[in-house]
């Protein structure tokens, strides 16, 4: 055994170039594995964060009947006297903000936009003073200013602004149906442009003050939703139960962000399946490379193998020698790969890659607008390290088996 290990080690150092090339292939595979895994985890982490920061908050209160009809955004299925609920929740230490969401028609006039036009839109009416307690829109302002309470102003997402050619100071008209079904039109001045990192939001974001919307739409103190922010490590399920008991109204329901974003989470699950495929692919490519070089290594030494078999070395001992040799290559490659992976991960985590050109037009589910950054994951490095060694060792078995199936005289003659 000691002899076999020393022989394997000597072969490793003797065929140094081959050892380094194979180890290099393994190292690149492992580096890619660590990098791709880091990026996917980073994308997932950032997506979830951007989802909570700009879409779902941590939890949300709706009228119990709202959920089924949420795509129509009805104003009459609402939370009456939202201020009272907001106060109550705030008194209990929760960060909350009310909102009114409604759909309508955006009318663009020829003076400000060069031509007349209209489009279907969704508008979110926010409390300019409280919204930032829960969401993070005020950090995303790229032009103009944030909303003031009670003004006839509107904020617009930068991609939507680009699409329609909106500028600060331009006026838009929104036509919608108020609470009760009457038609209402509002003239609003664009006061700010937001560049929201969440592409789903940035593509069609329109926000106006809740008090203005409340007046126009005759909400009579009602909101369509109350959003709640919880700490990162809060138990969301438990907290929603507490919130439910606090508001003490059977007509209202509390939804966690996971409830609200179930479709996103399903996409994420699918993406995860896809990313596992990428990782498996990386390992298959590496394995084929290893298998090939091991095959070469073994066939180069067919006569040597024949001699060893002639002298009575058992097949299992020969197999073990080549396994040790492959394991040595695997260890070198894995160490190199993990080191390389960690180095490149510094870049991936801190700088990232800009996929903005792609993410603007294609919705792949991730809530990332442009720069995809990685996330550190110690487990991955450990898994990649051992997988590199184990796979290399196992892969070496195939060519060894082929060589051992040759009869000894043929080995000696080669």
């Amino acid at each position, binding site marked *: 055994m000691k002899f076999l290990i020393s*022989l394997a080690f000597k*072969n490793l150092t*003797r065929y140094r170039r081959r050892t380094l090339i194979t180890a290099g292939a393994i190292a690149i595979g492992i580096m890619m594995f660590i990098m791709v895994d880091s990026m996917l985890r980073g994308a997932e982490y950032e997506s979830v964060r951007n989802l909570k920061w700009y879409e779902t908050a941590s939890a949300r209160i709706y009228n119990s009947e709202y959920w089924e009809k949420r795509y129509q955004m009805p104003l009459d299925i609402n939370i009456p006297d939202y201020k009272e609920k907001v106060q109550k929740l705030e008194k209990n230490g929760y960060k909350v903000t009310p909102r009114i969401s409604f759909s309508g028609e955006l009318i663009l006039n020829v003076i400000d936009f060069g031509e007349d036009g209209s489009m279907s839109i969704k508008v979110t009416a926010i409390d300019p003073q409280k919204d930032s307690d829960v969401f993070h829109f005020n950090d995303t302002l790229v032009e103009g200013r944030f909303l003031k309470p009670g003004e006839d102003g509107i904020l617009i997402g930068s991609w939507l602004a680009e699409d329609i050619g909106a500028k600060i100071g331009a006026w838009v008209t929104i036509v919608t149906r108020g609470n009760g079904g009457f038609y209402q039109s509002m003239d609003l001045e664009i006061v700010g442009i937001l560049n929201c990192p969440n592409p789903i939001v940035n593509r069609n974001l329109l926000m106006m003050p809740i008090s203005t919307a409340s007046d126009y739409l005759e909400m009579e103190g009602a909101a369509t939703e109350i959003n709640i922010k919880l700490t990162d490590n809060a138990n969301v399920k438990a907290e929603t139960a507490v919130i439910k008991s606090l508001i003490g109204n059977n007509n209202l329901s509390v939804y966690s962000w996971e409830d609200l974003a179930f479709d996103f989470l399903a996409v994420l699950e699918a993406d995860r399946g896809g990313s596992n495929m990428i990782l498996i692919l990386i390992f298959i490519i590496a394995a084929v490379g290893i298998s090939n070089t091991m095959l070469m290594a073994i066939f180069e030494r067919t006569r040597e193998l024949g*001699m060893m078999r*002639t*002298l*009575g*070395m058992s*097949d299992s001992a020969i197999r073990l020698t080549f396994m040790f040799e492959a394991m040595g290559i695997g260890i070198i490659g894995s160490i190199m790969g993990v080191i390389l992976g960690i180095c490149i991960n510094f870049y991936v985590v801190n700088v990232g890659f800009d996929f903005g050109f792609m993410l603007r037009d294609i919705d792949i589910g991730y809530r990332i607008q442009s720069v995809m950054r990685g996330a550190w994951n110690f487990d991955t490095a450990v898994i990649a390290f051992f997988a590199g060694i184990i796979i290399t060792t196992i892969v070496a078995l195939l060519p060894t088996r082929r060589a051992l199936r040759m009869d000894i005289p043929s080995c000696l003659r080669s």
Partner: protein
Amino acid sequence: MIKIDKVIKNYQNGETEVKALRGVSLEIQKGEFTSIAGPSGSGKTTLLNLIGCIDKLDLGEISIKGEKVSSMNKKEKTSFRRQNLGFIFQTYNLIPVLSAYENVAFVLSLLDVSEKDVHTRTMNVLKEVGLEGMEDRKPAKLSGGQQQRVAIARALVKDPEIVLADEPTANLDSTTGEDILKLMKSMNEKLGTTFIFSTHDPMVMDYAGRIVLLHDGLIKSDKNRR
């Protein structure tokens, strides 16, 4: 010691069948220094491979030391070779990454020999073959004759009763080849080891105690030179 009885061995070479051995019977006694002679293609290697238990015969029987090796399975043959047979090859077949010492000690590492014994036996046999002081050299740093000496040491270190050598001098110039044969002969006399070696070189035959001449897979003559 070795009994070869009506051995037939055919090779399938694509469509055609090559009759390598066509009924060879032969007995070799302990301590003999036997040369299997004959032109190229006469079946020398085939016969040595069969005696060496690394090939399978088609018909007939071979027994060594009373054991019917021709009907052993692969594992039994491997173990039999390990315990009883030494081999010397035309192309030396040393492991290039190992020193002369390690190439010889390798054989003992396959057997149940204590580390201390491995050292003394390896050093002794290397001295016997005239390689004292060259133990640490790799094969690439040795001449052809020296490499074949390492191979002889490797064959003898486990003290086998039989050493098989297929054209051990074919890759060497005639003086070196003669030296190798002298060494083999002296070992044969000193240790009583049975040597069977093949050759197609008439000079080599001068050293043999017995010459078995093969021709087209049959024994043409069998002469004791003593």
